[in-house]
């Protein structure tokens, strides 16, 4: 098995395990509490409105916004890590069809794996910091993944026979 193929397959399975472990931790220790928090904030906001107390409603909505922001991203991180991991494995299995030199394939595999790790990590960082850096990391990750996949497609569509 070539180094590039090994990197994608082993990296993909490891990333899938990481994503599943994260999901299991989240389901056991965080999800129910997060959902209760979101529902509680929303109910408190409308309850405050019923009491004609716009200030309390606004505070409750701020809590709702923050809790939902965190919840959505944590679920996205779980899904994207596993989804990208599966793509890494499948592309790794098909990597002998990519008609590039092994060193180029290794660069592609590194970029693909790095993007698959970094993109959800950037999304996860957004739960701690709403600034531009986590968003930039997520964008960098997604650009790496898309560019690598595009290059792999070009490599598979190429004419030269593989010399792996």
């Amino acid at each position, binding site marked *: *098995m070539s180094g590039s193929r*090994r990197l994608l*397959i*082993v990296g993909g*399975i*490891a990333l*899938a*395990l990481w994503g*599943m*472990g994260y*999901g*299991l931790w989240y*389901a*056991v220790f965080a999800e*129910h*509490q997060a*959902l*209760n928090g979101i*529902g509680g904030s*929303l*109910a408190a*906001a*409308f*309850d*405050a*409105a*019923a*009491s*004609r107390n*716009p200030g309390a*409603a*606004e505070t409750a*909505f701020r809590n*709702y*916004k923050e809790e*939902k*922001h965190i919840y*959505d991203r944590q679920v996205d991180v779980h*899904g994207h890590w*596993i*989804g990208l991991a*599966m*793509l890494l*494995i*499948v*592309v790794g*299995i*098909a990597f*002998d*069809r990519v008609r590039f030199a092994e060193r180029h394939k290794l660069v592609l595999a590194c970029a693909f794996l790095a993007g698959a790790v970094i993109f959800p990590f950037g999304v996860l960082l957004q739960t701690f910091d709403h600034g531009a850096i986590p968003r930039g990391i*997520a964008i960098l990750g*997604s650009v790496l*993944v*898309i560019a690598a*996949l*595009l290059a*792999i*497609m070009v490599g*598979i*569509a190429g004419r030269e026979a593989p010399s792996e």
Partner: protein
Amino acid sequence: MGFSKSSTSERTHKLDASSFAPLSARRLLVLGGIGLILVGMLFGDIFAVFVLHQNASQVGASLAAAAHAALAGDHSAVLTSFQDVGSFLENRGTKVDTHVHMIDFGYLALMLAILQPWIAFEEKARQGLAWLFLAGAALLPLGVFLIHYVGLAYSPLQTIGWASIFADLGGLLVILATLGFLLGLVNHLRSHTPAQARDGLLSDRSAAGRFLLGGGMVLVLAGFLHGAYYAGVDLYRHEALDTSILTEMAKAAAANDAGTVDRSLGAYGQLQGDKAVKIAAHAHSIEFGLLAMMLAFFQPYVRLRATWKIRWAYVLLLGSVLLPVCVLMELRYGLVAGGLADFGGLLVIIALLAMWIGILRYTGQLDSQAGDVG
């Protein structure tokens, strides 16, 4: 349906029959994986047709009731309405999770099946891991599905019920099995043994396989680009709108402004619909692309005539394009687009079922040949 004995008997010479023996890890994972995907997709289609839209209406109606209760200053009705919203959302969320996890575990099973020749364990150990994986892959979605119905009945914990506990146990089993396969793969890589005899699945370059692999990659890339566009243009706008519309609704209720409450309710419903279709189109495009790529490798096991294999590949890719595109058009064209999207999902299911039957026929042929030899 175009079954051919001659083409298949040629192919069985190229494939290593022992790697697909009865109850072998690869056979368990292939048949179990496609079975999981089929059940998950059927569940998703039934959910989309009979539950999703009705559930969205119920959530909207309960939210409207909460807003009007706030307007009337009725605290208990506000709380009751939000309990209803929570219950409807839980019902919807657990069904979506059941659908997604079942399909994703099916995908993972197929990938692990392809990797079997590289897992350096005895066949018996690999069989055990495959059974462990399939048990967890069935237990988690079943547990998630039951969460809404079992609730916290007889639970020793305050926030997590028995159904959740079993679902988490299922997830743990899948993790352990996958970890076991990873260890087997690392064993193989560390042993520096030369590559095994060429695996028929990996060396296949049939037209159907190439078509599925290429089409699948294009679908995945389209899904990625659509996701990037959504994240750049819609995601933050949607999140800001979500809170601002709800705030406006509550403020209007506090000010006794029924007209604004109703307008906000309408805007909130539109926003949720817009969000849902864009995320669904992104996710389905990638998931179907991934499925097509994986099925490309299993074409040598599909005991159908070559022309039929290509036809089923076309059907699968047609449905894979139709569903996300029509889901995106659902807000503008309503039920017509929704119906076409469901039809696209059905095409994928039918094509997958045809391939599954083709693989079953191949297993039957292998088993009967083994019986003849015995």
